[in-house]
């Protein structure tokens, strides 16, 4: 049984068809990387798959149709880390991370020992234990991002869906985050993360889904997806690819066409 399964998914924002006929699944033990240029429909695909916006096609979380799940049941099956790093009030980091326990709390009850253990573990995994009493709004951009990741980890859902989780993190914390994702997969959970760093995606993801113009352009193991031809046709770049070293290298070298032209071509293909 897959943690997330969508078939023939289509979503429209305003009048624009952003996702069109996408099928995708994430199983236990998988860390799936969702890659594609800006505007390819990655965020919309993830939000639609989780049932946060209306969409056509079948959407299942843990084998159950999304529409049949109550919001709380859905939250227990999948944690969602949006791209917007919004923290409205100056909560302490610990209180912020504890918000991830919301779906597990019984009405009128405060957090119990299991909740506190989950929060402590999430803080440790994101290297934030020393910051637990600090106001989250006083953190740096990267620390804030880690606090929000910790919130999603504390939710302890079988599936974690994250929108550009590595953006704004320093190299060490990017690596440790991808290690965390690999660790979650090793525990039998599943991760779906959109990524712009192709080298990180190549090294840490068990499978990549390449999105272009709202459709799946390629899917499979990183080495099969990241070919010079596809990087050229989808991203419009020439890159140095090396799969033989200690870690895969995907180093963009040059754009193949002026960006203005590629934008015109892309909007013709549906964004």
């Amino acid at each position, binding site marked *: 049984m897959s943690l997330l399964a969508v078939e023939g998914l289509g979503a429209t924002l305003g009048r624009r068809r952003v996702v069109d006929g996408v099928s995708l699944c994430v199983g236990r033990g998988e860390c799936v990387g969702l890659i594609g240029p800006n505007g390819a429909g990655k965020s919309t695909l993830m939000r639609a798959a989780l049932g*946060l916006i209306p969409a056509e096609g079948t959407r299942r979380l843990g084998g159950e149709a999304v529409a049949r799940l109550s*919001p709380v049941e859905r939250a227990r099956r999948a*944690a969602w*880390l949006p791209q917007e790093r*919004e923290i*409205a009030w100056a*909560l302490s980091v610990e209180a912020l991370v504890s918000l991830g326990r919301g*779906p597990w709390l019984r009405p009128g009850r405060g957090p119990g020992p299991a909740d506190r253990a989950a929060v402590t573990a999430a803080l440790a995994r994101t290297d934030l234990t020393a910051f637990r009493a600090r*106001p989250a709004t006083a953190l740096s951009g990267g620390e804030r991002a880690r606090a929000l990741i910790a919130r999603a980890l504390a939710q302890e859902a079988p599936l974690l869906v994250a929108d550009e989780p590595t953006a704004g993190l320093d190299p060490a914390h990017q690596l440790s985050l991808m290690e965390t994702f690999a660790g979650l997969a090793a525990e039998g959970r599943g991760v779906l993360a959109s990524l712009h760093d192709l080298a990180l995606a190549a090294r840490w993801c068990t499978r990549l889904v390449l999105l272009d113009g709202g459709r799946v352009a390629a899917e499979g193991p990183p080495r099969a997806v990241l070919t010079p031809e596809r990087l050229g046709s989808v991203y419009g770049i020439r890159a140095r690819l090396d799969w033989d070293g200690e870690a895969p290298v995907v180093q963009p070298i040059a754009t193949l066409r002026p960006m203005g032209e590629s934008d015109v071509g892309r909007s013709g293909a549906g964004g």
Partner: protein
Amino acid sequence: MSEAARGRWTLATLAAVVAALFAASLLTGPAGLDLGESLAALVAGEGEAAVLVMREIRLPRAILGLAVGATLGLSGAALQGYLRNPLAEPGLIGVSSGAALGAVLAIHAGLSAAFPLALPLMALAGAGLAVLAVLALAGGAPTAGGGALTLILAGVAVTSFCGALTSLALNLSPNPFAALEIVFWMLGSLADRSFLHVQLALPFMLAGWAMLATLGRGLDALTLGEDAAASLGVRLGRLRLLAVGGVAASVGAATAVAGAIGFVGLVVPHLLRPLVGARPSALLPASALGGAAVLLAADVAARLLAPGQDLKLGVLTAIVGAPFFLWLVARHRRGLA
């Protein structure tokens, strides 16, 4: 001290302050009763005139001060939490201006002179209609994002329109006394309110409080934005209805019996937020107590500062509230620099 312990301590302190100010409100007034006389009249019913003063004049006034203040504080905290905007206040979604318009029409048409409860009833109706208009304008489920923003815009539109109609009623008022009555009513006061007013307003306020009291967890999750809150299991459509409905019922009733009293709902949540670790759910009860304390204190001060002058409550809260708000702004700027 842990965050939870500090929160409990804050609530206990605020509750003690409210109790003390409630007693002070009962003991303040032009009748000049001393402590023993007051208590004997209130509890045991001794002394005919004193009983009348205590039970029919001061007790309803103190109860209304407590309830109206709690309403303003609680609603301010709930709306700031829902809109994720520290500048939100209960009047933002059109309730106060709708209530004011209803009251002004009652005075204008001479209904309030013919039937004393016509004014609060019309004010309640005005508040209800204004909020229905805001909800209709802002649309139902906030799935397309910007749910909070459309609510603010709709609230501003309805508030402006009600304000314009109120001005029109003032403009066309049949005689100068009606105009004066309208102006005075809009300044807000708790003077000369009876138990009839309490009976009329309290059920609506209690219903509103009950709705707002359920919001805590949802407001906490909204700290992360609407998308993340929805993914954490919060039903945003229901949250919005409960927030708007709770504010409408309680603030509509409060405005209907006490007039427009500004700044309490804006300043009190601001002031107490740091004391409860900024958690919206913890701010709700603290802000309710804080609002009650501020309004009771203002009402006692109005009676002590200008005995016999009927200093209006809304005037006092604005005179104290505005400079205080400036001080908050200055402190915020220093914090950023």
